[in-house]
């Protein structure tokens, strides 16, 4: 059983000598609650392809838009959501889906089933 309290570990980072770095970060798009966003690729037209194993859908986002929004590019007929995405030839992407058991999180000592997929 491996438990790591990360707040305590933050203090260690500094003493370990790993350099810290500050760069500008801005939000592009926030998905609805309970969407575990996991994968991303980018098209040759600079639009992002984003996927979550929470939903069987590929989204596209134009990050240069004034208020970037996620559009549904495709919804797969089966499975629970894309994992990997990679471009194989120009603008053609390989995508892997699978029917997840579940994404399970334990909240305190209670089992929280964030998404339970019976299939």
């Amino acid at each position: 059983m491996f438990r790591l309290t990360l707040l305590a570990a933050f203090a260690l980072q500094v003493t370990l000598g790993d350099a810290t770095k500050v760069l500008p970060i801005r939000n592009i798009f926030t998905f609805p609650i309970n969407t575990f966003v996991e994968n991303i690729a980018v098209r040759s037209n600079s639009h992002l392809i984003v996927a979550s194993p929470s939903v069987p859908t590929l989204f596209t986002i134009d990050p240069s838009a004034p208020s970037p929004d996620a559009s549904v590019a495709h919804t797969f007929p089966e499975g629970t959501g894309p994992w990997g995405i990679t471009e194989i030839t120009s603008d053609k992407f390989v995508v892997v889906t699978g029917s997840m058991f579940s994404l399970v999180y334990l909240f305190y000592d209670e089992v929280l089933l964030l998404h339970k997929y019976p299939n």
Partner: protein
Amino acid sequence: MKFCCYISIQTDGGEIVWDFANTRALLGSLTVWTVNFGTSPPTVKNITRIANSTIFNGIAAVPGSTKLILAADSDIGAVWRVNINSGAYSIAFSDPLFANTATGILGINGIRIKGGYLYFTNSAQGIFGRVPIDGEGSKIGAAEVIANVPSGVVYDDFAIDDGGNTWIASHPNEVVEVTPNGNQRIITNTTLLLNPTNSVFGRGNLKERKTLYVTNGGWFVGNDLVNGSVVAIST
């Protein structure tokens, strides 16, 4: 607790334990597709189902090939090869540096291919490394470790910039930049980096190519996972 393999993370809402053991697909459900964005709507083709793996985590096309991809099996510590023309698939190679551990279920996780090397993270072992491969995606030399994960951080997927620096999305609030010689710089942001899961550099003009887009898995507030999102880092 009955689960053997998890990591606990302190959040605003308390202690969250991510159970990697259950982050698996049902055996026989993994499916490989091609999605052609050159048409509107995209043209989608079912290539094959994978009968004998429960997780293809990171995937990467073999450069110079129009048909071969490699896929990281975080469970058995192997790299699979899939031919999207024929649908044939098999394990390309394995390595002890891809394996999971007694305390960490997800072994090899993210993969990218650049300059004749397959670069990989292993979340369980806490390493970033590489292995030389040929044009068919076969291993042609020994795997090596480039960096060990900083304390308190878990490596996930990553992107490599034009200078050969690797930017690893890392839990709980980090992006870790690794230089080719293994030096690390840590970007921490507890409001905009919320369990980063993956990253990619933009394409197009110079500004886009210097922009790192990072996916956030999200953060628990109460029982809800909030702020699953995409953020942009100007590098």
